[in-house]
């Protein structure tokens, strides 16, 4: 390497370090350090009056079974919610990207995003009313279907989930469908594939990056969900997030709470990484998290 090349390289590196410094500090102070503290706490003990006292024990991890219900609910309802969002969101994204006229497309797309800009809490509150006794059940009662109960059931939690996260699913799928080269669809049709066969063999595989991104966004958010089970599950549909809030704010059992939090993070990282690995092989080449 010539001197000039070395100098240029060094200068570039210095610039890069300088540009990285603030974000590196942030990651260190607000991500690495907190996660280390949580890790340290997770092997500690609950102080007699609540909180943490230093110790080295794996009891908290061995005791994770005591929150089995929370883990089970989260690990069933989060994937189920993701899947429902996908099944409900894909046709809409397809409609927007392929079928809607270019004139109305932007408007329709904005309409999908707008609810996302309304307070999450207030939207979920609206569902408390709709699914509660004065809402849908009364309506059903009126037309002769009696005794239907929605609120505080896994069903109402799923409705809340789909409502809250549908836009997050639709958007990335829309983007990948819109980027899709329409000539590929014509090529497929030209080669004798019926519209459905074209959808299955071309459209679907090529929208995989959007599907994967959407699923991951929704899944990640659902795994840490607290408000929806709290508000629409009436404290009866218990997620890990709810267990964590209880452990930290009511039981004051921080070591156990930390162990649960660590377990949640590990489950997340492992499942998402595996999922990405698995999908990368099947055409999801250029998947990004956003």
């Amino acid at each position, binding site marked *: 390497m010539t001197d000039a090349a070395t100098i240029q390289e060094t200068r570039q590196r210095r610039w890069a370090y300088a540009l990285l410094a603030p974000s590196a500090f942030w990651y260190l102070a607000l991500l690495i350090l907190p996660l280390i503290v949580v890790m340290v706490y997770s092997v500690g003990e609950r102080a*007699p009056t609540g909180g943490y006292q230093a110790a080295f024990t794996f009891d908290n991890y061995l005791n994770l079974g005591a929150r089995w219900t929370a883990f089970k609910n989260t690990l069933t309802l989060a994937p189920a919610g993701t899947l429902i969002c996908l099944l409900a969101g894909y046709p809409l994204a397809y409609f927007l990207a392929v079928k809607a006229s270019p004139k109305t497309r932007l408007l329709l797309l904005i309409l999908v995003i707008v609810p996302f800009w309304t307070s999450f809490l207030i939207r979920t509150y609206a569902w408390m009313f709709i699914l509660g006794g004065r809402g849908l059940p009364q309506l059903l009662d009126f037309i002769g279907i009696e005794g239907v109960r929605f609120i505080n059931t896994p069903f109402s939690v799923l409705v809340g989930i789909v409502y809250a996260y549908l836009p997050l699913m639709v958007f990335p799928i829309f983007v990948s469908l819109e980027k899709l080269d329409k000539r590929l669809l014509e090529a497929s049709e030209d080669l004798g594939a019926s519209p459905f066969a074209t959808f299955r063999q071309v459209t679907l595989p090529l929208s995989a990056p959007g599907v994967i991104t959407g699923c991951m966004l929704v899944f990640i958010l659902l795994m840490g969900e607290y408000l929806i089970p709290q508000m629409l599950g009436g404290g009866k549909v218990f997620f890990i997030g709810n267990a964590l809030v209880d452990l930290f704010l009511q039981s004051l059992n921080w070591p156990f709470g930390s162990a649960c939090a660590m377990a949640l993070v590990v489950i997340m990282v492992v499942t998402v990484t595996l999922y990405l690995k698995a999908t990368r092989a099947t055409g999801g080449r250029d998947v990004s998290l956003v």
Partner: protein
Amino acid sequence: MSDPRKEFIAQLRRYQMGSISRRHFLGATGLGTAMAVMAGAVPGLRPRAGFAAGEIGDKVSLTSWPNYHDPANLEKFTEMTGAAVELTVFGSNEEMYAKLQAGGTGWDVFVPTNYTIQNYVDADLIDPLDTAQIPNFDPASYSDPRMSEPGTIGGKIYALHKDWGTTGFVQNTKELPDKLTSWKEFWDIAKDKASGRVMVHDYQLTTIGNALKYFGYSFNSNDEKELAEAEKLLIEVKPHLFAISSDYQPGMRNGDAWMSVAWTGDGKQLHNDIPEIIYVLGKEGGEIWSDFYAIPKAAPNKKGAYALINFLLDPDVNTAELMVHGYPVADKRVIAKLPPEIANDPIMYPAAELLSPLEFGASDVLTNPLRAEIMARFKSA
């Protein structure tokens, strides 16, 4: 240097569920009509000016609960003294405690609940009050000394009584016509006729406490055997519950829930709007609580603080306050000014035999790890 662990706990505890709902007020809903009558009936509500403008500075900060004061009163205070009242509200005692502990709050007056006052004294965060600066304070005026006692620690008065309340349950008599009178009936009917229609607080102090009452144990019991029995009852009832939540008003209002553990203010509010919903104090007992005015050691404007407390304890001002927040006050001078329909309101001023078995929450019960774990097991059952 304070104990880091304690501070740590305090930081977290402030979020404890449930204390928020207690802070319900009746507002326009609860006592709308009575208030309108009162406003005209009470003469000279406006106390004379006792301070020259600027004498106590231009602002006094008051840290309290949501919807717990009459804005008109605070404006009057400003008119009289020239000091604006800067009102901040909190969600729970734990949060209030943690804030004060962290320091630099700039609070002049704040409103702690009975079981936390000991903690403030232990942590050396509040000073005994100089009652000479509060002429409106009259120890003889308390209708029930139990309400004011928690403010006095080691013979010194640290805090003065503001108002009080109880924890009972609400019952929709349209759906459940038989009027209940005890916690035993509450839990029994929850498993039976009211299955799927009952709510309990997402708050271990009251939920476990009232389950203990089923067996006649103390609301504040920390006894392992007694707690085990309470847990068994709770787990049995769990499948029959509509919800475990401290937000019971919406469920009661829209008819999804027929019964719920409830605090005075909510009971009053629900009853006013929907007369068939009644508020019941279990005859076995339950919780009673009381709120206080106190001045932090680090208050920047102590003179203003005393002036504000004195103003708020003025019987006329205090009566107007009550009309807004809707919780009972133990000051006889205030009770005397109340219209009979309020003074004799069985929800706000229950019969003495119902009050006597009630217990004040104990601070060690709040931090009991076993109780916390029982609550968690109950919720995830």
